């Protein structure tokens, strides 16, 4: 019902629109609102002008079509539903409707009829005539298949089109060609024959061209083979022979020409390109390694290469380095072609080989191998060039090779050798991996490789690291990779994993590296928990973790967060259960250090650093100090705090408490006396742990003060903490930390109050007379700082931060300098949005109320009209009846009169 209503409204509106465009606006209907101030050149806005009469009549019409209908239908149960296709869709044009209806009709017809129809095709008609019949008169050669021209021949057109009267055949002509005009059947047959012939001709032509192309291809491949062999064998002597001997001038000119001027350097490579090159390089190295592992040398491979079939598409860039090991089966003149060096050579290389063959066999072989090596070298260099190492390196190589080739063209091959050596030396400066491969190629250069050496190389390749790695998916995977490797090699493995999975190389690599980060983090924890902490490995890992974090900060932060969270929950659950906790293991402590390496610790709020600091604060307040290890851990955390806040100079009360407590532990307590100072938990006044750092010996001046070893942190340290050495070192470290913190907090307004407990303790109870000079110096330094500060201290009374004074209220109007009426007032986006919605709501509400009011008026009018109509009807009927009655009465009276007259 509702839908119908709205659709009806739409329909009416649409019709109206049409009508409106038709009717030109009548100037008498236009009403313009009077302007208060006339402004010249101001355009009338939309709401300044209107046609009240038109719009009113429009509204009334609309209401008649919608509201009135509804009003009239109001008490009716039944309703008329128009199910005609498209009748309810105002979007549809009349044509569309007709089309749809027709389609529907056909469909129903088809469904009904097709049940018994034997012919699949239904008969199509045009103007009542069957199309199949008309078809006969259509172009007769339509069945001929796709002609190249796609056009009818001119002759046929002449004859057949337009009834053939374009040609104006005379009767005489007709008689000449044939006695009687050809029948239709004959004509068609003729046409078919013609078309078949043409088809045949085309096929023939095509075959011919194919043959020709095949021939050419064959010739080309032959040529190609020739060319290749030429290129591979020495072509230089030949050229040399042809060239005239260059004189000094020429050499000079060329040299000058090749002197390096401001040479256009290569474009700097983007990171992705570099990464891709790096990966390609590693892949290549890996492939080489694989080959060497199988015991194949470069030479073997090359031998195989020389015999392989070269396709026409081969660019000969050495790209396809994984070669099929099987030999290409090839016949030449009916004989089997065997690999080079055995018996038969490709006939084309004969001429070039002649000079070599003249030499004694062994020498020749050596020479050959040398030559090949050179070739190989240059090939490698070329490939290097194309792949490109670090840009500067490759440039150097470029120069080298260029010059080299130049020289080799001009001078003899002996000189070339010397040059070669030089370039090799140059190359030795490259990275270690390169070096290795280079060295090995050198090894191959030196002598023909005996079987034994071959084996040795294979062995070496086995121990050598692979160049590409699969990204590990869990710590277990990583551990499998790392198993049995030294730390240096482990770092190389990680480096290579990272290079192989650079994010720009493949889609999923970024994710893999993110996983790698969390795995390395796990590995970091594992390493940290080993008893002698492998610092060099940890340092290496730290750098990797740092770099990985730089690549994807968000996920890295998340994985650090998860690790931190796990560790904290472990710590906190113990804490909640017992009310105190034990110092966490080394991995947690080093993780906290790692956080300070990866993330900036001076941020006001940081999603990793702030929780880490909370954790540290918690460690300092919840863990009771019961052993030397605890002291070491506590000192470590204090130092961590120092590191964290060294830039921001933030205040950490926990550390001050802790340092105070540690110093308290060093004070010799006399039993029976009241406690010397008030200590804050986790430290206690009494108890066995109360004098953990009190020196046992009376004189310990000779103790050598060393920095604390990280080893103290582990749960079973190799060094004993129950010695005076440790106590002294710990006390010294505490004093040092105290000094550092005191220096850092010098500017805090409550500096004196913060440090006065420590000062009291140091000045009254912890005299440290019998201690090494260093310790005493640290103590006196602190006390000096305190007294200095105390003498200089000023305690300015606190005042509120100065607020901007409120401006006086002025009577002048407030001008907005760049006022723009178009722009809305200032305010946040949210506020503006709210304002806008409120405005809209108000407008809509007003509109709705107006509409309702008008509807009511319309209905009232309608009801009045109805009533009036009803009354008029009634009046008319009454009048009629009265009329009737009066006429009856009149008749009656007349009759009565007549009767009287009669009587």
């Amino acid at each position, binding site marked *: 019902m509702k839908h119908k209503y709205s659709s009806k409204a739409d329909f009416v509106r649409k019709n109206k629109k049409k009508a409106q465009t038709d009717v030109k606006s009548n100037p008498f209907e236009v009403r313009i609102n009077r302007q208060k101030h006339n402004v010249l050149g101001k355009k009338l806005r939309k709401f300044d002008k209107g046609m009240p009469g038109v719009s009113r009549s429009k509204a009334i019409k609309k209401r008649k079509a919608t509201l009135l209908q509804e009003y009239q239908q109001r008490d009716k149960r039944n309703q008329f539903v128009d199910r005609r296709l498209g009748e309810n869709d105002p979007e549809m044009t009349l044509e569309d409707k007709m089309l749809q209806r027709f389609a529907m009709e056909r469909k129903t017809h088809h469904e009904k009829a097709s049940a018994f129809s034997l012919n699949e095709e239904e008969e199509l008609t045009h103007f009542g005539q069957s199309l199949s019949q008309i078809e006969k008169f259509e172009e007769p050669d339509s069945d001929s298949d796709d002609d190249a021209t796609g056009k009818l021949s001119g002759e046929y057109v002449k004859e057949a089109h337009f009834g053939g009267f374009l040609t104006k055949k005379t009767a005489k002509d007709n008689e000449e060609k044939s006695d009687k005009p050809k029948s239709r059947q004959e004509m068609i047959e003729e046409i078919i024959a013609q078309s078949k012939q043409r088809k045949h001709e085309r096929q023939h032509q095509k075959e011919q061209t194919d043959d020709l192309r095949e021939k050419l291809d064959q010739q080309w491949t032959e040529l190609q083979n020739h060319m290749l062999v030429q290129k591979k064998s020495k072509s230089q002597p030949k050229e040399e022979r042809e060239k005239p001997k260059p004189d000094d001038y020429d050499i000079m000119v060329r040299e000058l020409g090749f002197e390096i001027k401001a040479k256009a350097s290569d474009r700097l490579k983007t990171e992705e390109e570099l990464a891709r090159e790096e990966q390609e390089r590693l892949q290549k190295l890996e492939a080489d390694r694989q080959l060497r592992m199988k015991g194949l040398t470069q030479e073997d491979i090359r031998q195989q290469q020389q015999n392989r079939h070269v396709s026409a598409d081969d660019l000969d860039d050495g790209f396809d380095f994984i070669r099929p090991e099987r030999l290409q089966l090839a016949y030449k003149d009916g004989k089997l072609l065997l690999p080079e060096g055995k018996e038969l050579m490709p006939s084309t290389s004969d001429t070039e080989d002649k000079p070599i063959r003249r030499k004694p066999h062994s020498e020749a072989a050596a020479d050959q191998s040398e030559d090949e090596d050179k070739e190989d070298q240059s090939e490698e260099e070329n490939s290097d060039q194309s792949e490109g190492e670090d840009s500067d390196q490759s440039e150097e190589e470029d120069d080298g090779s260029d010059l080299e080739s130049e020289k080799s063209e001009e001078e003899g091959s002996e000189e070339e050798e010397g040059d070669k050596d030089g370039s090799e030396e140059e190359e030795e400066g490259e990275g270690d991996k390169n070096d290795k491969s280079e060295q090995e190629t050198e090894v191959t250069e030196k002598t023909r490789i005996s079987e034994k050496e071959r084996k040795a190389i294979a062995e070496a390749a086995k121990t050598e690291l692979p160049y590409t790695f699969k990204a590990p998916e869990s710590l277990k995977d990583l551990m499998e990779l790392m198993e049995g490797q030294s730390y240096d090699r482990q770092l190389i493995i990680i480096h290579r994993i990272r290079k192989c999975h650079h994010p720009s190389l493949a889609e999923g690599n970024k994710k893999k590296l993110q996983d790698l980060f969390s795995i390395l983090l796990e590995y970091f924890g594992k390493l940290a928990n080993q008893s002698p902490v492998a610092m060099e490995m940890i340092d290496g890992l730290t750098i990797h973790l740092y770099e990985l974090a730089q690549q994807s900060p968000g996920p890295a932060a998340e994985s650090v967060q998860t690790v931190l969270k796990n560790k904290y929950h472990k710590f906190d659950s113990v804490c909640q259960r017992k009310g105190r906790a034990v110092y966490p293991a080394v991995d947690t402590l*080093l993780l906290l250090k790692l956080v300070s390496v990866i993330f900036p610790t001076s941020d006001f709020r940081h999603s990793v650093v*702030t929780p880490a600091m909370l954790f540290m604060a918690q460690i300092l307040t919840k863990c009771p100090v019961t052993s030397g290890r605890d002291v070491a851990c506590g000192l470590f955390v204090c*130092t961590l705090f120092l590191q964290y806040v060294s830039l921001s100079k933030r205040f950490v009360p926990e550390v001050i408490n802790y340092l105070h407590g540690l110093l308290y532990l060093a004070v010799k307590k006399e039993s029976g006396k009241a406690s010397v100072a008030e200590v804050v*938990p986790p430290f206690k006044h009494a108890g066995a742990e109360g004098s953990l750092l009190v020196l046992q010996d009376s004189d310990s001046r000779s103790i050598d003060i060393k920095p604390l070893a990280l080893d103290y942190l582990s749960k079973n340290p190799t060094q004993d903490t129950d010695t005076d050495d440790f106590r002294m070192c710990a006390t010294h470290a505490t004093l040092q930390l105290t000094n550092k913190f005191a220096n850092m907090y010098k500017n805090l307004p409550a500096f004196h109050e*913060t440090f006065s407990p420590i000062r009291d303790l140091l000045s009254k109870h912890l005299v440290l007379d019998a201690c090494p000079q260093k310790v005493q110096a640290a103590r006196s330094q602190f006390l000096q700082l305190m007294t200095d500060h*105390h003498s200089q201290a000023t305690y300015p009374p606190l005042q509120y931060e100065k607020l901007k004074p409120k401006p006086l209220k002025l009577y002048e109007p407030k001008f907005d300098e760049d006022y723009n009426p178009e722009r809305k007032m200032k305010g946040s986006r949210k506020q503006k949005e709210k304002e806008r919605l409120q405005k809209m709501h108000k407008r809509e509400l007003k509109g709705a109320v107006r509409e309702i009011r008008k509807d009511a008026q319309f209905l009232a009018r309608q009801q009045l009209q109805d009533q009036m109509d009803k009354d008029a009807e009634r009046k008319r009927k009454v009048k009629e009846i009265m009329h009737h009655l009066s006429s009856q009465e009149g008749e009656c009276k007349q009759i009565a009169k007549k009767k009287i007259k009669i009587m």
Partner: protein
Amino acid sequence: MSADDAKSDPRTVAADIKRKAKEVLQSREHANNITDILETAQSSEDVVVAASLSALQKIFCTLLGRKEVYRGKLKSSDEELADPKQQYSRWLGQCYMDALDILLVHLSTHNNSDIKELALLALLKLISAEGKHPTSKSGGDQSNFPLRLFQLIIDKLMSCETDQSAVIGRFQDYFQYDDIRLFTFVSLHKNLRTVTKEFTRQPPDTYLHNVHTLLSQVQMPVEGDQLNNLYVSPTDPDAECRAKQMKEQRRAFTNAWLSFLKNKLPTSLYRQVLLTLDQAVIPHMSSPKLLIDFLTQSYNVGGAISLLALNGLFTLIYKHNLDYPDFFRKLYALFEPSVFHVKYTARFFHLSDVFLTSTHIPAYLAAAFIKRLSRLALSAPVQSLQMVLVFISNLLRRHPNCQVLVHRGSAEGLGSDPYDASEPDPAKCKAMDSSLWEVKSLQAHFHPAVSQAAGVLGKPLSPLEEDLSQYLELYTSEMFEKDLTKPDQVPLEFHVPKGLFGSKDQFLDIWETEPPVKKQKTVT
């Protein structure tokens, strides 16, 4: 015979006991069955004991109703003279005494708490039976309540050896009866007096726990309640008796509590008592001021107990017009650094907030508290600092005169802080002349939430007080979770590290972070 039965099956024995009890009630011929039942009541089988206990209860309830039991004093000389009927009733009286003994022994020492409960219920049934058919000697007043037997029950319940809390829980249902409630207090008071004397104020912990369980389970009637729900109805229902008087009830309650509190309580119980004191005890006491000795003593214990004692004192001051001039001074003394590390930190600050709610306490006092708290804040752990700062700012809002602590017009620098932290008297500590430099220092606290909270005090305060309760029980774990926001933009350190410990690290001269080769350099 009974021994054989006991061997065979406890269930058949139980059935047998039931049958015997029925026979006893049917005719006097089977009266000797009572001795059998008394014997089985001491068996080791729980089922048998239970059956015999209920049989005894049934038998004696009926017999007491028939007034066949003699309940006077048993004299051996009378035995021969009396006629058989009298002799029979005396014999029954003897049996009744034995039965009561057995029940009481079970109540105090039996291993199974179900049996204990059963014994208790049987005894209470017998009390009601005795009450219905009083002898002239039994009750002290007109209430007919068998006080002697009840006293015995209470004595057994308040055992020095075993924890009776389960049985006492069962007993709780009877406290709805006004007379039982009253006589519980009365007999408890009596019992306490003897026990206290016996142990010279240091009775065993189990005893005290039992007493406390019993005392804390009593629901005292509120003023104006009708007190005529009696367990043992007196002969004259309208007569005035002690149980019906509120005053009597309260006096008994007060006496019982006071005699309980005279003992030296173990710490956990002490805390529990103090926690419930102002809610459950003080309102029902006839004169709460009698508690003042106890409370002042508790205050001197120190720590959390002092605070809880102050809570009780505060209630007395606040509701019962107690004049206690040293209250705030004592509260002031409780603010010490360890207050953040005890279990009751949240409660302490909640109560302190309540004590200092009034805007009518003098400004110097508020200033002293503010200054003291801010001193404490210098050594407070992270999780408490927000609470402390909010506490301070609320105090400042309540006492606008104290705002000189955060804002003073004259900007003359002082040589040192005028505040004297070691002065125990808040009036003399010169807090008003000082400023909150400590809070200013906390604006540089490492945790962002704390430094923001401290920053609030650097500006003029908004007039509305902040809600302290959300910070009272703020755990570090919550803060930790809150800080672990999901990182969308994570800034990273831009200094490229050389290793875990860099060369410009703060660790350098404190920790030996270099590989051992370079170690010697740092040493020399």
